[in-house]
């Protein structure tokens, strides 16, 4: 018999899980890139990897305090955005797509190679960087919460920090996008030449947008690794595609879209995987093994991306007039 309570409670937990917060942040960054500026950044996984590794390596190899480690991650992602942007921001959108995806893969290969094993931990990654963050935890030890949302002090601390960051950055993004700067950015998305004709330096605005969204991705990468360890295999291109799925689901040029999109995405995905896994266990799907049940979610995400883009390109919260898909 299927344990529906477990499936529902696991799915409900995803609502406030740190992973959901991390994806929401990464998607918010992509919303700045893709939704508002029209930049096709397919290297968000690279920005997230820089956040994760920048944070972990600063603490493990150099013994930095938490705030310095966060700054190192942010600094690394700014440098990365500059390196990406300088050759490609003058070019057509699909060039940026190819270069960003390539750059993210370069980062992942560098983090995976045995050559830098002493610093990056190669394929097995890094752990043991959490003490500094845990020491900042003001919550006294113990277990808090109700129903499915019962966690210990550290788990609550990650969730509080993660979702506060999401809230703050969502408000910041909202403010930026209704400022004059935001209007120029949206103008670039709609018609780059018109903005150029108004005397704006399009290249510089695009670069600022790339850096800002990249920093969001970096912070997302840090939240992402707080409940787990840093493993290079997590930063494959499919991570970027998952973030895109969330962004497109919620609506690319919206503030709430990425956040609510991330919640819907993870709750549905957890519900679906939980259901299929249990159904296989219960023998309802005799043609499928447990391993195959786990792969089904990727197929589902792929199909979902296709369907959303074709049938509801503005996403759940989007406005059809504000489409990032120009031309």
């Amino acid at each position, binding site marked *: 018999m299927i344990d529906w309570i477990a499936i529902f409670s696991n799915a409900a937990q995803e609502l406030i899980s740190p992973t959901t917060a991390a994806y929401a942040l990464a998607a918010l960054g992509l919303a700045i890139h893709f939704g508002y500026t029209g930049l096709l950044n397919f290297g968000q996984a690279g920005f997230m990897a820089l956040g994760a590794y920048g944070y972990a390596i600063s603490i493990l190899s150099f013994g930095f305090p938490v705030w310095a480690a966060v700054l190192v991650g942010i600094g690394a992602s700014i440098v990365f955005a500059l390196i990406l942007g300088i*050759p490609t921001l003058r070019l057509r959108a699909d060039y940026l797509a190819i270069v960003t995806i390539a750059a993210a*893969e370069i980062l992942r290969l560098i983090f995976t190679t*045995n050559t830098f094993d002493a610093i990056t931990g190669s394929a097995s990654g890094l752990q043991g960087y959490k003490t500094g963050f845990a020491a900042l935890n003001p919550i006294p030890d113990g277990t808090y919460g109700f129903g499915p949302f019962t966690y210990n002090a550290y788990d609550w601390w990650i969730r509080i920090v993660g979702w506060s960051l999401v809230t703050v950055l969502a408000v910041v993004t909202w403010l930026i996008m209704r400022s004059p700067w935001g209007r120029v950015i949206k103008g670039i998305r709609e018609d780059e030449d018109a903005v150029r004709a108004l005397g704006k330096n399009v290249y510089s605005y695009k670069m600022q947008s790339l850096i800002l969204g990249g920093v969001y991705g970096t912070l997302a990468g840090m939240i992402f690794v707080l409940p787990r360890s840093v493993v290079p295999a997590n930063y494959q291109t499919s991570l970027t595609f998952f973030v895109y*799925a969330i962004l497109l689901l919620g609506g690319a040029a919206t503030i709430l879209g990425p956040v609510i999109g991330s919640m819907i995405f993870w709750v549905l995905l957890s519900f679906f995987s939980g259901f299929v896994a249990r159904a296989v266990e219960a023998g309802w799907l005799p043609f499928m093994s447990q*391993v195959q049940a786990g792969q089904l979610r990727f*197929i589902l995400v*792929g199909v979902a991306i296709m369907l959303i883009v074709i049938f509801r390109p503005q996403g759940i919260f989007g406005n059809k007039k504000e489409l990032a898909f120009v031309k």
Partner: protein
Amino acid sequence: MEPTQSVAERSRGRWLILLGILVAALTLSGIAASPAVADEASTESSEQEEFEYFFSGNVTFDDEPLEGVRITVEGNGFDAETETDADGKWTIGVPEKAEYELTLDEDTLPEGVVVEDGQATVTAEFGLTNRKSVNFFLGEGQRVTTDIGAQVLIRVVNGLNFGLLLALAAIGLSLIFGTTGLSNFAHAEMITFGALMVLSFGVDLALPIWLAIIIALVLSAALGWTLDAAIWKPLRRRGVGLIQLMIVSIGLSLAMRYVYQFIYGGSTRQLPGATIPSDIHLGPVTLSWIDVASMITSVVVLGAVAYFLLRTRIGKATRAVSDNASLAAASGIDVDRVIRIVWVMGAALAGLSGILWAYFRPGVSWDMGFQILLLVFAAVTLGGLGTAFGALVGSIIVGMFIELSTLWLPSDMKYVGALIVLILVLLFRPQGILGRRERIG
């Protein structure tokens, strides 16, 4: 006690036979890294009588014992070395039942054989017995000890082979981009498809390999036809934007890739003949006949594509659509038909490229196409997006660069160099090598 003893002996004998069969089966099914299987029972221990504990093993490559391979042992303040005998067997005695590091000296291996990545030094510990077998996994490969000129030549030939198979996929991608404007991320899955079909028909259904390859190519072409008919043509009709189409292709790529994993599982399997020995010697370069066949196939097919594009009516129409679709339509060219032909051709070329890639790697796995997708994109971008011959030039440069870069880069970083070159080229010549400036606007 006596009878139990003999049962134990016999069962050990059975184990040995079983092991032998297993090894034979593994080699027959063509695992590249033939394990140097340790052979416990038959090792002579007479020469090592001063110690109670022994490490032993058997160094073979492709079922051939390797003689004179030096093995050293180190640990607990003790070190010793030995060499394999004519049967490839070796034994080292050690004073204590403790942990030791065993190293196989790669310089004493014959040409073209290496220990698989980083496994030349193995840490071993004794279990319940006083004898421990240690395996070194040998594979085909090159050490940098060969003189640099010969190394470069070997890399160039390998790079040419790799570049040519990349070109097959790249030309299809480039033609699709040229005629429809779509950056097709699902091209990776079209590459994998060819190899998977050969696996299904050639291995699982055990058809002759030439027949399996023909079936795979026909099915690949059919896949291209189906994709265009089912997805891309309707989307073009709807007037869906190019960036939307690109994201659809990403979703399609993700879905297809995991469908492959769903059906074929996550393991790597070999096509028949993928690991035959390299017995064609041209100076310092050793090739297997599959390498030669692969290169000849690529060149012939690329030549045929060039002839098609330059000399036939449909080929000319294809280039016209690439150049300016509206103008082509106005001059009476059936654009949809041309695009359909391009999809069928691109998919068949990608399928062929996948089959050759399966022999080059070697192995077939669910994500093999995705592993080279970025290289194919790099090749197309290097040559100039949308230009068929640029894709060829770009592919060969990428292939050569990757192989040559292993001379100074560790092999797990060899793709990094190619991707960095891609970024650098965009910095200095954004339209690519054979591209025209107007295309980047």
